[in-house]
């Protein structure tokens, strides 16, 4: 049981929430704007529409009720409608100035509260007020504004009404100017509007006005038959919808038809009937107009008494209405309203402009900052580019200088090589003049040492890296040079040369070269004297250190001599050079002599 109750409550909560969420603010606004008028208001609206055509006094009362109801319910549409009806009532009662004030108030409220459906009717009232004062410029302007509003609202009923209004104004102006073309144009406009009005029974009420106006045009064009055709239709509808004011117009045009047909009696009769209705309607303006028609009709007949009565009535009503002054004041009222509206618009625009100006200023500031930043960055870019260019130039200069240095170094090595070669040649030349064989041998040995040094420079000259010696090339050339100096060629001895170290710094390569030169020279001098198949092995590898191994298959060196060189310059030289290299030397004798040197690698060596 409890669970069922909870379920029901939960479901109701969801429904409530859904309703709350789904109730759009626009709907609330629509209620406020009277789209869904409560029942009471609907009744009042119907009464008002009934009274518009005939009973302006009653319309006044109903209009006040509608406005009060609107204020009570905060129904903006009702308030504006009430104001409109009030304006209309005042207009019908001849209080044109008051009518204009009320109409402008209604217009202002309609625009403020966006009750746009009221705007065409309000402009209709205003236009009519201007027209009745023969202020056609203002009348047309109001009709145009009303038409624009009706078109925006897609309010066909209002459009029909405003077409007729403009057609009527055109006719009125044409009559005033005695411009028949304008009168013809107004007929065309009326007929166009009539087509739309006759297209649906919904617009039947509005046909009365059209028929009356068209009848009036045909009267002006002196076509009484056509005028009669339309005026009869107007009378039928006016009686059907109790449009008593329209009836006065119908009777007026009917009387004109009679007058055209020289039926003064009927013509007069209908004018007096129209006059009576106007008096009941308390519509002095219509009374004034009809009095004028009556005077114009009676005066030619010689009925001066009634003609004078009609004329007097016309003057009195005209003076009481203070027509001329009202024209100016009514015009001023609307102009004032329009001016105020314009001022408001200007203020609003000014406010918008101010906001926009501020935005523009900020935007300009932003643009300014952006421009400054851009300029700064451009400046920085140019500085950087300039610096880069300078760096590039400097790099190029450095590269060029480096290349020049390389070239110079190569040239230097070349010259050193050549100079050493010159020294070697000098020694050779000197040697050839010696008689003593020992002396000759010493010269030759010295020559070979110089050759060993010269080959280093030859290798340096041959490569791009002017500090590094290609050990494979160097040792191979050195061994060949030594063999040649001893007249030993490959038919007798093929040396095993295994140089796994590619490049060595000159400071290491030179001493190694001199050591190799000394040891191999010693081997050729002493080791191979009685060896049929001489063998020689030179190995240079790199592991944690450089390992230099030279092996021959001679009888073997005197190890005591190695330990204590005495006068042996060659062994002394090897030891000195080994010491220079911080090398560890070990000499063993086993079917030949084996020299093994362990040479520490310097940090800067770029041997690969």
């Amino acid at each position, binding site marked *: 049981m409890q669970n069922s109750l909870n379920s029901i409550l939960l479901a109701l909560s969801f429904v409530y929430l859904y309703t709350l969420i789904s109730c759009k603010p626009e709907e609330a606004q629509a209620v406020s704007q009277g789209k869904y008028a409560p029942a009471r208001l609907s009744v009042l609206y119907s009464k008002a529409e009934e009274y518009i055509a005939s009973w302006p006094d009653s319309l006044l009362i109903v209009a006040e009720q509608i406005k009060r109801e609107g204020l009570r319910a905060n129904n903006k549409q009702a308030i504006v409608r009430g104001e409109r009806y009030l304006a209309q009532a005042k207009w019908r009662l001849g209080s044109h100035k008051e009518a204009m004030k009320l109409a402008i108030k209604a217009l202002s409220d309609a625009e403020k509260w966006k009750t746009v459906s009221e705007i065409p009717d309000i402009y209709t009232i205003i236009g009519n007020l201007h027209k009745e004062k023969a202020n056609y410029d203002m009348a047309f302007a109001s009709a145009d504004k009303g038409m624009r509003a009706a078109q925006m609202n897609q309010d066909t009923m209002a459009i029909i009404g405003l077409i007729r209004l403009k057609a009527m104004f055109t006719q009125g102006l044409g009559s005033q100017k005695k411009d028949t073309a304008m009168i013809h144009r107004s007929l065309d406009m009326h007929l166009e509007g009539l087509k739309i009005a006759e297209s649906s029974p919904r617009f039947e009420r509005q046909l009365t006005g059209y028929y009356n106006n068209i009848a009036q045009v045909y009267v002006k064009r002196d076509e009484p038959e056509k005028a009669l055709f339309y005026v009869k239709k107007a009378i039928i509808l006016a009686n059907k919808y109790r449009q008593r004011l329209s009836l006065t117009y119908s009777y007026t045009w009917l009387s004109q038809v009679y007058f055209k047909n020289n039926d003064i009696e009927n013509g007069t009769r209908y004018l007096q009937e129209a006059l009576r209705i106007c008096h009941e309607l308390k519509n002095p303006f219509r009374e004034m107009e009809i009095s004028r028609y009556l005077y114009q009709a009676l005066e030619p007949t010689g009925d001066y008494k009634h003609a004078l009565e009609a004329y007097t009535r016309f003057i009195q009503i005209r003076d009481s209405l203070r027509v001329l002054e009202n024209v100016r004041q009514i015009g001023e009222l609307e102009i004032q309203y329009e001016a105020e509206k314009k001022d408001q618009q200007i203020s609003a625009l000014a406010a918008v402009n101010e906001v926009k100006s501020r935005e523009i200023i900020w935007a300009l500031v932003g643009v300014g900052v952006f421009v400054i930043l851009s300029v700064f960055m451009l400046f920085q870019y140019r500085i950087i580019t300039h610096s880069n260019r300078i760096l590039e130039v400097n790099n190029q200069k450095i590269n060029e200088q480096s290349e020049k240095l390389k070239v110079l170094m190569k040239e230097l090595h070349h010259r050193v090589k050549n100079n050493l070669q010159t020294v070697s040649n000098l020694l050779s030349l000197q040697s050839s003049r010696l008689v003593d064989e020992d002396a000759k041998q010493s010269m030759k040995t010295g020559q070979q040492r110089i050759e060993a040094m010269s080959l280093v420079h030859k290798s340096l000259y041959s490569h791009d890296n002017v500090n590094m010696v290609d050990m494979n090339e160097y040792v191979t050339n050195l061994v060949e040079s030594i063999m040649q100096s001893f007249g030993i060629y490959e038919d007798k001895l093929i040396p095993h040369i295994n140089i796994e170290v590619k490049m060595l710094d000159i400071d290491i390569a030179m001493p190694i070269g001199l050591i190799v030169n000394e040891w191999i020279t010693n081997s050729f001098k002493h080791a191979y004297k009685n060896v049929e198949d001489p063998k020689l092995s030179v190995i240079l590898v790199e592991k944690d250190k450089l390992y230099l191994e030279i092996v021959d298959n001679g009888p073997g060196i005197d190890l005591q001599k190695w330990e204590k060189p005495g006068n042996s310059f060659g062994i002394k*030289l090897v030891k*000195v050079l080994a010491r*220079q290299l911080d090398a560890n030397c070990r000499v063993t004798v086993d079917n030949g002599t084996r020299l093994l040197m362990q040479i520490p690698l310097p940090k800067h060596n770029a041997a690969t």
Partner: protein
Amino acid sequence: MKEKKAVILIVEDEGIQAMGLEETLEQAGYSVAGVSDNGLDVLEFVRTGDIDLIVMDIHIKGDLDGIQTARKVQEIKPNMPIIYLTAYVDPETTRRAEDTSPAAYITKPYRQVTLLSCVANALQRPEIEG
């Protein structure tokens, strides 16, 4: 009475050049205390040995070059004559070397007679009383 031979220390990291120097000096009648190729060994020689003159190459092994070694030697023995025998001829090196008030500054390649006359001259220089 046999005149005591002057004892000269050779500071040279090129072995062959050191050999040549040693032979030249010995043939000239000098005693060579030894050949050193770095500044620390030189200081050890000076502290422990009886050295009369040092023939110093400037470019040697180790953290001290010949000029720095000479300064250190003068801290130990201010009157020790030092002859620079070097390939460096740039103004900066010669200025640094001059600051140590050497007995001579000989550039390579040198002539034996130049070296020997500088050695003789240095050894005959009276001791400066400190």
